[in-house]
Every structure is written in C-alpha cells, then in structure tokens.
C-alpha cells in the first residue's frame, strides 16, 4: 500500500494502479473517457486532467492526465484545482462542438457517459457557432447500430475490438477531426463479442440494435440479477423488461466469471423470451399420440389442466420424471421429489451423462481445482484439448485471449512499465505472446492467438494430451507410437506448462470423448505433482449441465427402457425436447408407448407437441432458480418480470402436481426457499446452492430491494387502459426483491444488484461504485457458491489411453461441430441471432474431398444411423482424413449423439 495525497488529504492505494483508478475508488468524481478498467490507459482523451505536485513544497505543479500517473508512494494531485477544472471543462466543450443535437433520439440517452461527464464538468452552452462535421453510418449487421456523428474519438471501441477481443474488421479511418470508426465497408461485425461495444463505447455511436426495435430508457427497465441460460459458463446478466417483455441484456459484473464482457449469444438470445411460439397457457391434447386424427392441442384453464394432469398421474402404473440440463436445480429437484429418486432421469443421453459424471468425478476426487474465467485470464500458459471455445464456451475464449498477454507482460514489468499502461506495454512486448497450445479437430477461432495447433481426430487428441502429461511427469503413463510430429509439440507444450506459474488446462464434452477429459486431468495432476498450481477448466454445453449431473439422475436410455419394459406408463418431461437429445426413432417409440405425457416447457417444440398436457413454464426471465456452472458454482437468477399469463416456474407447477387432487389444495412448494431447504436435506452435495444468494426474508433496514430504478416512469398510466386504478404490484415471496421502485436505497449484496446507478453516474460506468475497488472484486464478494473444491490427496493417473484413430473405407467418423449461433436450443428462437446462423453443412477434410471428387457447395447425402441427411459440402483444410463434421443442434441434425458413424 502506498500513501498519496488527493486535494491535500492522505489516502491509501495500491501502487500498481494509476491515479485515475485510485481517485475513482475513493469516490472522487473525476471525469474520463478513454480509460477502461479492462483495457488500461492510453491518455488519449485528455479528460482526466489533474494538477500534480512534485512534493509538499511544490505550489506550482503541472497539469497531467491522472490515468497516466502511477499511484506511487507520495504522489500528490489536486482534482479541485481551478485550472485543472477549467481544462476538463474545455475538453468537453471541444468534444461537443461537433456533437449532434441527438440526445432525445439517441439510445444512449439517460445512460450516456458523455452526458454524465458533460454535466460533471459543468459545460452547458455551445459557444461554437460554426457548422458541425458529419459522417455517414454503416450497416453493421443485426446486433449493432452505428451512429458515427456521436463519436468523441476516444478509441475505446477499436482498442476493445481489436486489441482485447482479437477482432479484425473494425478500425479507425481518416485523420484529424475526421477520424472514423467502422468497417472498411458495410457488413456484419464478425467478432463474436461485438455486442460489448454497446457498453464499451461511452457515447451513442454503437448501440444495441435489438433494443432499438422496442426502445426503452434505462430508467424504465425493470431489472433483476440473472444468469445467462445459453451455455455452461454462467455469465452474470442484467435483463431489462418493460410492458411484459424483455427488452435487452446488459452485462452484470462478476469479478471471477464474465468481468465486463458477455458474448453475443448471451447478449442477444433474450429475444426468445418474447416470441409468439412461447407457451403462455396450459394446453390439453388428448389425442396427442394418435397421429391420424391431426387434432390440435387446445388451451384450457390452469385448474382444468392441473386436474387432468393429476388424474393422469393418479391412474398411472408408474410415473417417471425426465429432468433437464437447461432447467434450474430447483425444478429438477422438484421433479425428483415428485417421482422419487429411482424414477428420476437427468434428461441426458447415456453418453453425455457419462461424460458429465467423468468430469465431475475428476473435480470431486482429484487434486486440481476448477478454474474460474478470471483464473484463465490470469493464466500464463493455457492448453485447450478438443474444444473450439469460441463456439462452445464463448466467454472462455475471450478469457484465453487475455492469458497470452500474461507472460510477455513480465518483460514490461521488469522494465518498470505498469500493466495498466496499455500502449507502453504493447510497445514493449510487440508481437510476443505467451504460450497457448490448442489441440482441436478442426480450425478454431483462437488459432490466430495460439503458439501451436494440432488438428487430429478425438482419440488422437486424447493421446496427444496423455503424451503431454507424460512429458510433464514421469509417473504418468506413456503413449506408444505417437507420431513424431505430435510428440515434439507435446514436449514443447509440456515444457511451457511446467515453466508457467499459473497453468490452466481446458477440455470439455463437445467432442463426446471421455479420454480427452482423462488426458486433461492427467496433465493437471502431473503439473500439481511438480508443485505447479495447475487448474482445470471444463466446458459443458448447457446452463445447468453440472447441476443435472450433481442431481444424480439416470440417463435417458433407462427412461426408455422403463417404458418399453412396461414398468412405467407415464412421464413428466421437464423443459426438455427429447428430439434434440436422442434419435427420432427412439423418442417416437418412447412417447408412443406412454399412456400419458405431461410436458412443462416455455417454447413449443416437437416434444411438447406430443404431450397430453403441456404446462407453460417460465423462462429464465420469469423464474427464480439456481444454475450450476462449469466450475460447479451455484448461482441464483431472479424473476425479471412477473409473468402475466398462466406462466409459472417449473418447480411451482411440479409443486401443484404433487399436491392432492383438489385444485384448491396447497401446493407442495410455496416458496423457492422451501425447495432449496428440502434439496439441501436430500442432496448434501447441493446444499451450498441455498447460500448462492440471500434468502427471501433478507432485509436491509427493514426493506427489500427494488427491481425498478428509482425514476421508473409511467406507474399510474402503464395499465390504466385496463383499469384506471392501478393494481397492487405483484408480491414476491421467493426473493428479497420487490416488483416496484420502492425499497432499500443502499447498495445490496452483489447477488441482488439489479441496476448500476449512482448519483451523477447514469451510464454502465456507475459500476465503479459497486466494486471494492474500481475494476476489482464485487462489493461484498462475487456471487455464487462453488459446490466442489479439490481434495488435497493426489490421485493416481488415468492409464486407459485410447488406441489411435484408424480410418476405415466403409465409414467416416462424424463429429458435431458447435456454433455460437445455432447450436444452442433456446437462442435459435431470437430473430437477430437467427440471422447469424449458418446453413446446415457437412465439413469435409481436403484430402477426403479430393479423394471423393467433392467441391465446396456440392450436395452430399450423408447417412447416420439409418437417417439420410442432404447437406452442402464445406471443404476444410484442417479436418483430419476420415473425419466429417456437421453442425451440432441444427434442425434435421438434432438427436444425433456425436461422434457418430457416417456413410456417404
């Protein structure tokens, strides 16, 4: 800690920071534009001017940029200095001479950092009488709106997009006061993290295009802390809702996971909540299994639907429950409680269920800890084994991209260049990058950042991994007959990992190969044996995959067997489209043999179309619940809006089903906390989930926390068309949040933060006030509870090394290739995101394509498990011979369990 002086008063500060950061942490309102906690300082905007004094006797001092001054011991600055204030005011005045008269029609208005800073500096009237410079805009695709006139040339956008996110198609053009930020020509911004420009840009140049379609100001968005439901990482989000729909997603800072940034799937998938294909009322379909009658399901009242469902349950021989990795822990548990442990299924195909268990067991019984995204960002050597991260766990790819800066940063530090001094650090390290080794089946979007990439079939990737483990530690099993080329790369990777201070090994389930997980574990354990604090990061596909795994249900296959053997005749299917999980034929047979199918889901799908009773489930936005992410962190998400129709959380429906036959009878679960308490008793491993957020009776000064911002408008008119007397706001018995603007005005615990706002700080940068120190930990600790921590004991190495992949002339090994846009079930329904989904295709390696005389775009009929797929060929240079790839989760290709055998 260093002691330094701001406006004559002493303060303690971390000497590794700069004076802007320190001033903000201590609550000073010092305006700034170009500095960003995640991007560092470049001193470009000249907005954060202060006067610095050499020592106590120096009365003169000089104007400097606070963001470029290290917080060294004894530093003295003055923020209040008259000249410094004038300087800051004149900077805003300059920025404003060309600024358009746009605030009322600007989507940034009301949450604009430029507005805030203008008010903060006191600039009010435009004295400049001449004409304004103007720009034309570009069409940047479905996610981002461009309004270049509003630019203040702070360079944050290109620094984020190119330097931080590795994008290539956004740049600064032209010179002097003509500098233009855009693409070289109109077109979709290619980077998968482009949506963050909305929050990075301090003005209204880059705004959320999906929000524009149903524009609402920040002060009118009812909001609650939520967790992204569209991949296994559990990034924290802040969805905003108005008039019964979700209108946008903002990033919610989680120091250990997503930090300041989300991926575009997470930001834009929300539109699926507002779709017409949502199920909003119960449906009855008595002839659901009679394919000849073509009867249609019919809407009915809640009471009637519950009665019919209960009748069906009571007359059943045996009821089985099928849970889901996209449903919350609470909903899965409520189902398990309803049908009994022995009849509860986790909703996963056997192969995937097994993989998930292998991954969990490695964390449970092994010495390696699960790495958080922040630990990946801080890692100084990373190995990715068999994942195309950008497609399977996008935000993790962004974290990996930062990790390659860690090792070279040491060089800069040795020269005395602090890490926040972004331009200087980049000048020192030039093109030097830290070790990143990738072993993948096909090209990945991170290849450009990698030290080396090997492209192999899954078995060979696993063998490559085992070889690294062996090279790290001699007790690990050797790999016979590894090609020399692979052995050499394995050796180099092993050295890089062993030389690192904080190595991380990443692998996952997307290639469907358990040896990959074992190989990754071996490497981490080998490093641990050499006293390196290695961590493992798993990639799992869905928001609650690990939750479903920890719940301990049986795989789908056993559900199918229970029915085909005649043991069970009724199934409750919870938020699960079985046609996406297993082969059509199996699902058909299963459904056909059931006397009753009760489905609970939010969006219509092929499974709900075949159910006798469908109950409308809340999406993430209308439910309270808990997801367990890839590091086994249980995190709570809260209702953003109270559903108006018959929509209920799935666990509530299950509670209603479990109560007696009379509709008026009390449901089994009255509140979320009841479910959590029962789950903690039944499943001790999940007990931590109860503490993932404060319970519903948590109060601050006797109040709950408001979901609506303080200046929420239209309260007495929004619903006046229905009734001029406004209704009582919905009561929330499940959480310490209210559906109103009233409640505690203090900063809540991080799990309950519904918006970032502070007097004078209306933009997202109000976040500064919600952190222990600016850019640092969430106030009161990062949300969530990790359910599994590593065992101290060492674990003996896995020795089951797979045989090398051998090509066969009769068949190809077909892999499921994942896509950030298209492979996840729910996000496919979001219109803007759907525009980015590629056409289904079959990926063919160059050698195979030449051998079979196939050209790019040719139509190919691929047979997998007796099903024929007509697909266009995409020739891939890196895909190994004998291996094909098809996009996972795409229509027509669902229900395939990869890897599969394919014929063509």
């Amino acid at each position, binding site marked *: 800690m260093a002691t330094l002086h701001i406006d004559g008063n002493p303060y303690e500060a971390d000497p590794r920071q700069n004076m802007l950061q320190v001033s903000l942490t201590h609550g000073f309102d010092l305006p700034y534009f170009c500095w960003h906690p995640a991007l560092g300082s470049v001193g470009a905007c000249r907005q954060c001017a202060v006067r610095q004094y050499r020592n106590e006797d120096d009365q003169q001092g000089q104007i400097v940029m606070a963001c470029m001054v290290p917080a060294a011991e004894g530093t003295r600055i003055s923020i209040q200095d008259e000249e410094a204030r004038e300087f800051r005011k004149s900077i805003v005045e300059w920025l404003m001479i060309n600024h358009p008269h746009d605030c009322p029609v600007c989507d940034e208005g009301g949450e604009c950092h430029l507005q805030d800073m203008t008010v903060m500096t006191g600039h009010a009237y435009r004295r400049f009488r001449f004409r304004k410079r*103007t720009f034309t805009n570009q069409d940047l695709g479905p996610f981002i709106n461009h309004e270049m006139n509003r630019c203040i040339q702070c360079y944050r956008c290109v620094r984020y997009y190119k330097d931080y996110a590795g994008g290539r198609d956004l740049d600064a053009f032209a010179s002097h006061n003509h500098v233009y930020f855009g693409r070289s020509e109109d077109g979709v911004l290619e980077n998968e993290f482009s949506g963050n420009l909305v929050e990075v840009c301090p003005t209204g140049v880059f705004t959320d295009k999906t929000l524009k379609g149903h524009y609402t100001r920040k002060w*009118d968005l009812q909001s609650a802390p939520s967790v992204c439901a569209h991949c296994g990482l559990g990034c924290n989000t802040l969805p905003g809702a108005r008039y019964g729909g979700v209108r946008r997603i903002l990033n919610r800072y989680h120091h250990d996971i997503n930090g300041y940034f989300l991926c575009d799937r997470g930001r834009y998938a929300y539109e699926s909540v507002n779709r017409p294909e949502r199920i909003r009322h119960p449906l009855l379909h008595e002839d659901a299994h009679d394919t000849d009658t073509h009867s249609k399901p019919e809407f009915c009242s809640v009471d009637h639907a519950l009665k019919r469902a209960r009748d069906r349950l009571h007359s059943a021989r045996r009821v089985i429950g099928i849970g889901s990795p996209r449903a919350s822990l609470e909903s899965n548990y409520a189902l398990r409680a309803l049908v009994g442990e022995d009849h509860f299924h986790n909703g996963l195909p056997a192969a995937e269920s097994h993989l998930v268990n292998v991954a969990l067991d490695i964390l449970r019984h092994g010495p390696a800890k699960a790495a958080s995204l922040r630990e990946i960002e801080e890692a100084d050597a990373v190995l990715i084994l068999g994942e195309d991260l950008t497609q399977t766990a996008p935000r993790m790819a962004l974290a990996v991209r930062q990790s390659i800066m860690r090792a070279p940063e040491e060089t800069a530090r040795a020269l005395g260049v602090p890490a926040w001094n972004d331009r200087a650090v980049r000048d020192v390290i030039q093109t030097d990058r830290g070790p990143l080794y990738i072993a993948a089946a096909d090209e990945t979007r991170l290849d450009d950042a990698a030290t080396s990439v090997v492209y192999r079939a899954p078995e060979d990737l696993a063998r490559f991994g085992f070889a690294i483990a062996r090279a790290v530690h001699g007790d690990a099993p050797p790999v016979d007959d590894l090609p020399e080329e692979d052995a050499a790369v394995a050796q180099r990777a092993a050295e890089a990992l062993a030389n690192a201070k904080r190595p991380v090994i990443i692998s996952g389930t997307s290639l469907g190969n358990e040896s990959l997980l074992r190989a990754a574990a071996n490497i981490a354990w080998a490093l641990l044996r050499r006293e390196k604090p290695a961590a493992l990061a798993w990639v799992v596909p869905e928001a609650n995959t690990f939750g479903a795994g920890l719940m301990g249900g049986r795989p789908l296959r056993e559900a199918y067997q229970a029915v085909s053997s005649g043991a069970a005749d009724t199934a409750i299917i919870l938020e699960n489209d079985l046609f996406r999980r297993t082969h059509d034929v199996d699902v058909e047979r299963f459904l056909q043999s059931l006397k009753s199918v009760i489905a609970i889901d939010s969006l219509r799908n092929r499974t709900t179309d075949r159910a006798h009773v469908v109950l409308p489930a809340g999406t993430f936005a209308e439910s309270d619940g808990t997801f367990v992410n890839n590091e086994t962190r249980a995190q709570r998400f809260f209702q953003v809006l109270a559903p108006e129709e018959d929509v209920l959380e799935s666990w509530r429906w299950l509670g209603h089903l479990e109560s007696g036959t009379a509709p008026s009878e009390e449901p089994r679960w009255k509140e979320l906390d009841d479910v959590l308490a029962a789950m903690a008793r039944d499943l001790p491993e999940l007990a931590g989930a109860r503490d993932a957020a404060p319970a519903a009776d948590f109060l601050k000064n006797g109040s709950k926390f408001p979901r609506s911002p303080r200046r929420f408008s239209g309260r007495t008119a929004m619903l006046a068309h229905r009734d001029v007397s406004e209704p009582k706001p919905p009561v929330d018995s499940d959480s310490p949040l209210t559906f109103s603007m009233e409640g505690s005005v203090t900063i809540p615990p991080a799990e309950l933060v519904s918006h970032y706002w502070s007097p004078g700080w209306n933009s997202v940068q109000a976040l500064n006030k919600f952190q222990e120190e600016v850019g640092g930990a969430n106030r009161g600790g990062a949300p969530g509870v990790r359910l599994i921590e590593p065992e101290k004991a060492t674990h003996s190495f896995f020795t089951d090394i797979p045989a090398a992949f051998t090509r066969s002339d009769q068949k190809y090994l077909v892999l499921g290739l994942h896509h950030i846009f298209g492979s996840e079930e729910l996000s496919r329904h979001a219109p803007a995101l759907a525009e980015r989904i590629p056409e289904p295709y079959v990926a063919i390696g160059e050698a195979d394509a030449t051998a079979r005389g196939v050209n790019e775009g040719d139509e190919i009929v691929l047979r997998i498990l007796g099903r024929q797929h007509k697909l266009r060929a995409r020739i891939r240079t890196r895909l190994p011979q004998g291996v094909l790839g098809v996009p996972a989760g795409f229509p027509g290709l669902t229900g395939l369990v990869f890897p599969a055998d394919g014929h063509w």
Partner: protein
Amino acid sequence: MISMLKTLWLVFKHAFHKRVTIQYPEEKAYLAPRYRGRIILSRDPDGGERCVACYLCAVACPVDCIALDSAEDEHGRRYPGMFRINFSRCIYCGFCEEACPTYAIQLVPDVEMAEYNRQNMVYEKEHLLIDGQGKYHGYNYYKVAGLAIGGKGKGEAENEDPPIDPKSLM
C-alpha cells in the same frame, strides 16, 4: 371605530362594481394561452408527429401518469407507438411540457375535462394528437438533430457540413 366604518364603506362600494362572476357554461372565462390545462401532442410545421418518444415527459412527470412505447418507421424516424396519459392522476404541473425537447407535448387552455366515469380520464394517443403546432410555431426537431430520417440525409440538418469521406486523409 374608524376602521370599522372604513370597512363598511368599502363593502358598500362593491355593490356598484362590475360583476366578476360569469355565467359558466354559457359564458366562458378567458384563459391565457400559457394556461396549464388539457394536454395535447402537436405536429411539426411539415405535419409530421413532433413526439420522438424520448420518454422525457414520462420521467419528469411527478405522478408518473404518462406511459408511452416507442416505435420507428422504415426510415428511422422514431415516434410513440403508444402514448397514454391518465388524467385522473395528472396535476397539470406542466413539467412534461418543460421536459419535452421537441415542443410536442403542450398544456393548452382547456379545462373542461370532467367525467362521470374515471376510466374515461385515460387518454390514448388518438385523443391527444392534434393536427397543428399548438402554442409553439416553426420548430422542427428533426431539422436540427443529426439523425437521418426519411427526406433528410446526413449533413442536411441546420448548421451541418456534408458528410466527410472516411477513405480520404484530407
């Protein structure tokens, strides 16, 4: 004593004054143009809707009786798809008019809004939008804003230079 007589005299004198009570509703009181009565939404000189759905009136309203929802035409011009004022809550403070950056929302000298049924005090956009400019003539917000809308491209607003060419260094 003297003061009492004075008062009596004053009262007596008033008997011969001109009467101020008027026979409403046959006769109407004069209300100044700036009188804060019924609220209207006006149009700009070109006949376009002035309101740009910026939500400033709604947020300024101390009783929260304005609710609107924005929409956009195919050329990017924003307008309120829904605009509702609950006059049973309005206190005619005029904050909405002061907050409005486009002169769209105006309080006009009309006070005859009484209803037997409170529900009828809820006015939708069709009840609010008039065909003229109201009290403020000549202002057209989109002519000064930098945003391009149908009929006005970039650099065509008042006080604007034509758009620069980002591919040129000069």
